[in-house]
């Protein structure tokens, strides 16, 4: 049988507000002594009253606006009830039927370079839990993270490959960084990813009757691997006429497999009900307009503007806008070097020489470029053509590189140098080769 993967995604993004979601404890918990950022509210002590952090809610709405969501004028918080030691109150304050943002979309690139729209079901606000560490037959709990603002972004099951999922995750990470609402640092757990995957026979329209959710992944690469693994695992079951269990699984990096965690609890097990301690939220249109007017230029708009305004290739523009501060640095350099350097020269230097913008001022960079452009140089188009030829004629080395044997790049650099027959900066060649090799 031929199947297509049906994939949806839930992403939790931790906001970098100063204080927690419902109390004034510091939300900057990373690396701090355990249980030093707590109070009656985030420890769930009886009688404590949660009061929502206005900034966190505004940031949640900014994320929603960036994802083209509707912002309903009324909203509320709900209690999601379950017992787990990292949840002091016995419930998490979350949002159930009236999230702050809903019905949005975002565009991603597919493998064949087409633009595809992914539906955003909802973007809602909730609180993080404490941190558990397991030690043999006991678990230790640190509540510093308990109550840190968390935004959950849920997509429609619109992805058809792990490639599309990866495109989406990169975009989402870029957007929250542009909005300056989260560091989105995977290693610190600022972004946690939960893909849900099922397979459908090609040609069918209805969604499959089951879905497998993979919990709490903290790396884009693991998402990719776990999706690949699930597609294979589920296909084998379906080919044997078995329907995969509806369940939650976890990614085991050591064994490169997903393993079952528990049969998925039904949503009504959480016995959601309106949070009685927090009055409802009603916006007037002007407040939403005001938040909208504070939105920075978003990555997609910046990309289009860079291509047009600075006549950059989409490839170069894409690299420059990846990080908002690099984009700003580039624009400053273009402005300050008007008439002396071309936009392209600046873009090429920043990209090919991997300039660390924190360690060199715009002014010094311009001086350096002017200075070095007097040395022997090479036309960029010519160099690009030569590297293309070298890659084409050395397929074996290219394959080896892509299989992880990165040292073969030195061989490829040698081949390029031979063809050019000029003394030019190895780093430039290396970066061009790397970019081309990693691009596929």
């Amino acid at each position, binding site marked *: 049988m031929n199947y297509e993967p049906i994939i949806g995604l839930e992403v939790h993004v931790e906001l970098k507000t100063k204080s927690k979601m419902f109390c004034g*404890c510091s939300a900057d918990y990373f690396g701090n002594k355990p249980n030093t950022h707590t109070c009656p509210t985030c420890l769930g002590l009886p009688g404590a009253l949660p009061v929502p952090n206005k900034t966190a809610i505004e940031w949640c709405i900014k994320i929603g606006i960036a994802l083209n969501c509707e912002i309903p004028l009324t909203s509320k918080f709900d209690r999601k009830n379950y017992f787990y030691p990292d949840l002091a109150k016995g419930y998490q304050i979350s949002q159930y039927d009236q999230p702050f943002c809903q019905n949005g979309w975002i565009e991603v690139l597919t493998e064949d370079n087409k633009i595809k729209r992914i539906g955003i079901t909802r973007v809602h606000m909730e609180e993080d839990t404490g941190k558990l560490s397991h030690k043999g037959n*006991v678990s230790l709990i640190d509540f510093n993270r308990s109550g840190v603002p968390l935004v959950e972004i849920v997509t429609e099951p619109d992805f058809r490959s792990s490639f599309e999922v990866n495109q989406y995750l990169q975009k989402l990470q870029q957007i929250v960084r542009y909005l300056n609402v989260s560091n989105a640092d995977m290693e610190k757990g600022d972004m946690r990813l939960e893909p849900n995957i099922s397979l459908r026979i090609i040609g069918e329209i209805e969604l499959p009757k089951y879905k497998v959710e993979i919990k709490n992944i903290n790396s884009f690469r693991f998402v990719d691997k776990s999706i690949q693994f699930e597609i294979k695992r589920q296909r084998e079951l379906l080919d044997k006429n078995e329907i995969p269990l509806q369940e939650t699984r976890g990614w085991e990096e050591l064994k490169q497999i997903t393993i079952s965690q528990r049969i998925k609890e039904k949503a009504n097990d959480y016995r959601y009900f309106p949070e009685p301690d927090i009055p409802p939220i009603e916006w007037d249109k002007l407040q939403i307009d005001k938040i909208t007017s504070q939105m920075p230029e978003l990555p997609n708009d910046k990309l289009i503007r860079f291509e047009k305004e600075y006549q950059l290739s989409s490839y170069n523009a894409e690299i420059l806008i990846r990080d908002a501060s690099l984009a700003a640095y580039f624009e400053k350099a273009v402005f300050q070097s008007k008439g002396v350097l071309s936009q392209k020269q600046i873009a090429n230097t920043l990209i090919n020489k991997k300039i660390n913008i924190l360690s060199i001022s715009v002014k010094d960079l311009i001086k350096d470029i002017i200075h070095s452009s007097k040395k022997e140089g090479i036309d960029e188009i010519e160099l690009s053509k030569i590297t293309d030829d070298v890659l084409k004629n050395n397929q074996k080395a290219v394959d080896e590189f892509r299989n992880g044997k990165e040292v073969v790049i030195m061989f490829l650099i040698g081949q390029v140098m031979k063809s050019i027959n000029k003394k030019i900066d190895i780093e430039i060649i290396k970066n061009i080769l790397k970019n081309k090799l990693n691009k596929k």
Partner: protein
Amino acid sequence: MSKIDISRIAKLANIPLDDENKNKLEEQLLETIYYIESLQEINTDGKEPTNQVTGLKNIFREDIISKSFSQEEALRNSSCTEKGMFKVKAILSSD
């Protein structure tokens, strides 16, 4: 009204119950439900669903840090701690 599943409710509420208490609580809970059921007799046509009665809305706080407990204060009520953390019996881990 179907019979309630007392074992499931106890499990969700994280309350261990022996059979005797299960029967007792089941009876009491049913009684409560029947009593609440009488609300169904009230005509609520045209009434808006209500989940808040204070009349308040938009109660927020600014994003300002206030003083937290010290570690000693945070742990003071706990009978079981280790290395500045609350200690509980191990809960189901990944394996």
